[in-house]
């Protein structure tokens, strides 16, 4: 699924990486715990999280995660956006809960990591 389709399903606002919305994602991992995110080894991953701080982006950088959706109406800070842009990471924001976001993406055919 392309990121622009993810944005449509979640009614999400693209915060940065507007030129990369044709990027494909194959699987979703949803967590507010970066310790868990660091254990994931999956390509073309979409991370759903409600954790909003600079370590969300650092963790993604280290884990080669290029696509993030912030759920529960959380907003990326300017520092997060700057670091994401430096690492070619797309950030989207949506007002849906984690549960609803996961449900919509699962229903649309995106796979879990495990």
């Amino acid at each position, binding site marked *: 699924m392309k990121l622009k389709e993810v944005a449509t399903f979640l009614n999400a606002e693209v915060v940065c990486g507007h030129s990369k919305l044709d990027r494909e994602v194959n699987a979703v991992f949803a967590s507010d715990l970066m*310790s868990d995110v660091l254990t994931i080894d999956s390509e073309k991953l979409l991370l759903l999280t409600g954790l909003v701080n*600079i*370590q969300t982006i650092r*963790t993604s950088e280290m*884990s080669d995660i290029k696509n993030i959706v912030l759920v529960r109406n959380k907003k990326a800070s300017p520092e997060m956006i700057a670091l994401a842009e430096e690492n070619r990471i797309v950030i989207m924001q949506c007002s849906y809960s984690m549960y609803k976001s996961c449900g919509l993406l699962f229903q649309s055919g995106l796979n879990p990591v495990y």
Partner: protein
Amino acid sequence: MQFKYTIEAGNFTKAGDASSSFKKVLKQLNVDPQIIKRIVVSLYEGEVNIVAHANGGKVICEVDPNRVFIQLIDQGPGISDIAKAMQAGYSTASAKVREMGFGAGMGLQNIKNNSDEFIINSEVGVGTKLAIIVNLPQV
């Protein structure tokens, strides 16, 4: 080649700066991306541990054609029971650390899982030293 980084205690804004810098080095050296990921995930876990738990410390990364050798050396307080610290789920992390998304008691195990060799030594009141080796495939 050797690269040294200083890690500040408690500064979560800068946590990951060393890992990010060393990742750029490894990319420039054309190391396989899958191996880079194992190295930097290990390094980042260790770096966050120093920020979260220690009174500051340093990281020394050495790259040679056969392997990457990383030492993370902190200035205490040290770990009294290493076996317990290695147990999945055991953590002494503060509320602040948990708010940052860490402190689940998975870091040391994740370093072990991502490295070819992992050695931890600690002395209470002195500090903790991690040695991580990731072998590089020979072409």
